[in-house]
């Protein structure tokens, strides 16, 4: 320790990422080592566009919601002029958080410790007894720090600290298309967040990312859910039953988009242009028969269209490093430590500001809330146990490798389009290999991390 190098710019001593990330396997240490985790908070979470929140969480000026960029505590605000900002939840005076409320509305934040007060633009408003200071507080160095680049795409708010990062749309690249398709099936091209199923695991955050386009685990990890969905006769075509046969011979595919983003598209299993096709494969949910009958009675011409809004599209869109769209959920991953991670499954509601749904929006949402509660309760808990047990298994130091080579070396397995998107069969691990290459590049690159204080 020479004390001259800040942690942010120090090399990750002792870790050779060309060794840790190989073509067909990754080293256990990327999941278990504290120094690697600390480096990820800067070289991954500090370097790329990170999902911070959804515009529907701060619909009006002065609204705020707490969020995190890696381990940095933030307050996402729509300031008094309507500008969306990601303020550091950290008083410039002594470092305390200035906002202790999860969400709400406020024109200013006053630090509870010594009373320094900041406008929701981040600008310092005043300090108690300023005559006790030799200088005034006009210097912007006393404003709250904020994420220098914040941008939105279709309601999803992202921020990056890295001045070298490309514009948000370039960072998203081809994953922007399925994101837009997911939003655009809703009236007005938007959804609203409506509380969340909140889960926690004792495991590394990448275990969640590794699984998010994994079509290989489904019939094994979710064996109890599949049996449950099929326990009643007549349920053969419901839920996840398109995994019953070999998933690689079904019309569903995994895509790798670049920049770590990947996508599992199972929509080939449904007739996308047929109203009611999504509803037909939706698993059972409380109240579904009553509300289906009501919608068919009151809206005979549009009932199938409405019921599809209560159902979900079979797609998993994974935006590196912390945003996942699964069915109707917006899942957000928050790394807490090298071995602890929160995954928050935000439910989404249909909104109908322009009344294009003939007054059916409440009935649609009454079903949609219940369909969304199924997977976190009966599917995800089993995955999370398996992730936790990976973390246990990886404690064995001399057994170094976890394999990622399913599909590697097989002929005629992949296609690549002009944008560079790689397409493979549903259970293929190409998405793992490719995202880990990007991870390796990030972990060996120094981002130009900056914070802003000028308003």
């Amino acid at each position, binding site marked *: 320790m020479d004390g001259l190098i800040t942690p942010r710019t120090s090399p990750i001593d002792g870790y050779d990422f060309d060794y840790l990330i190989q073509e067909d396997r990754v080293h256990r240490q990327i999941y278990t080592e504290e120094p690697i985790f600390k480096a990820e908070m800067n070289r991954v979470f500090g370097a790329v566009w990170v999902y911070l929140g959804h515009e529907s969480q701060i619909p009006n000026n002065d609204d705020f919601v707490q969020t995190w960029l890696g381990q940095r505590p933030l307050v996402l605000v729509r300031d008094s002029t309507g500008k969306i900002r990601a303020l550091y939840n950290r008083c410039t005076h002594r470092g305390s958080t200035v906002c202790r409320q*999860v969400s709400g509305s406020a024109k200013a934040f006053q630090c509870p410790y010594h009373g320094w007060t900041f406008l929701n633009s981040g600008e310092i408003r005043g300090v108690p007894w300023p005559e006790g200071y030799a200088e005034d507080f006009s210097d912007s160095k006393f404003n709250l720090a904020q994420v220098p680049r914040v941008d939105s795409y279709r309601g999803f708010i992202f921020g990056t600290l890295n001045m070298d990062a490309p514009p948000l749309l370039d960072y998203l690249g081809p994953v922007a298309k399925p994101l837009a398709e997911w939003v655009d099936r809703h009236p007005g091209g938007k959804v609203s967040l*409506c*509380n*969340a*199923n*909140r*889960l*926690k*695991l*004792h495991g590394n955050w990448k275990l969640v990312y590794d699984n998010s386009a994994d079509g290989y685990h489904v019939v094994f*990890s979710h*064996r*109890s*859910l599949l*049996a*449950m969905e099929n*326990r*009643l006769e007549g349920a053969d075509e419901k839920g996840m039953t398109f995994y019953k046969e070999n998933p690689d011979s079904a019309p569903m595919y995994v895509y790798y988009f670049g920049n770590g983003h990947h996508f599992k598209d199972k929509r080939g299993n449904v007739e996308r242009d047929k109203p009611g096709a999504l509803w037909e494969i939706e698993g*059972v*949910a*409380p*109240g*579904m*028969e*009553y*509300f289906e*009958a*009501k919608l068919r009675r009151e809206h005979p011409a549009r009932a199938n269209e409405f019921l599809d809004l209560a159902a979900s599209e079979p797609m998993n869109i994974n935006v590196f490093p912390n945003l996942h769209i699964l069915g109707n959920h917006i899942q957000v991953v928050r790394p807490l430590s090298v071995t602890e991670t*929160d*995954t*928050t499954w935000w*439910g989404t*509601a249909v909104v109908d500001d322009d009344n294009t749904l003939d007054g059916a929006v*409440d009935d649609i*949402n*009454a079903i949609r*809330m*219940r369909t*969304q*509660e*199924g997977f976190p*309760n*009966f599917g995800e*808990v*089993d995955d*999370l*146990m*398996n992730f936790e047990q990976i973390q246990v298994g990886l404690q064995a130091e001399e057994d170094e490798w976890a394999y990622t080579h399913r599909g590697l070396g097989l002929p005629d397995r992949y296609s690549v389009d002009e944008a560079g998107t790689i397409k493979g069969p549903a259970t293929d691990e190409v998405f793992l290999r490719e995202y880990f290459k990007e991870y390796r590049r990030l972990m060996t690159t120094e981002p130009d991390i900056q914070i802003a204080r000028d308003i």
Partner: protein
Amino acid sequence: MTAPEHDPSRSSFYIDDDFYRDLVDGFTDWQTDTAEITDPAQRDACRNLLEREARYLDDCRFDDWLGMFAPHCLYWVPASKNGGDPRHEVAVAFDDRRRLEDRVFRLTSPYAWSQQPVSRTSRLVSNVAVFGTDDPDIVMTRASFLISEFQAGDYRSWAGWYGHRLHWTGDCWEFLVKQGNLINYDQNLRNPSIIL
């Protein structure tokens, strides 16, 4: 037109507009001092019921536990303070009869990895208070709970309070609604797969 008979284990017609409205109304401002029933016999009967429920769950006697519920029932663990409005908010759990039977089916499967090994639990139910409603055959109870859970070397706990809506059938009390309010209802929960 009379409604057709539907088996609530097979289809869910009873979770309808009236059900949701009565649920939200019934679980709003119900714990008033004036509605409290202080008759020790009534309180003891309710306490006995809640303690039996805890015993069934601790002993994984899920079919006996299901038998304590009315056919048209609800098991509800809100993710919002005091329940919120489940018509436009997701809950930790919102199980009608069919989904509750799904839950028990899955829990008793050897392939529910979140319950392999099966959690061992010990439940304390206390501070039971009974409240009357407009219907003399329906009472509501509030009781504190503390569940200690042990699984695979890991010891954790769940705390909060139950709101039970109970119906007198003429023979016995049955659960119309069981609401489990966690003190950490708005936090990320590790392996919330046991029945609370």
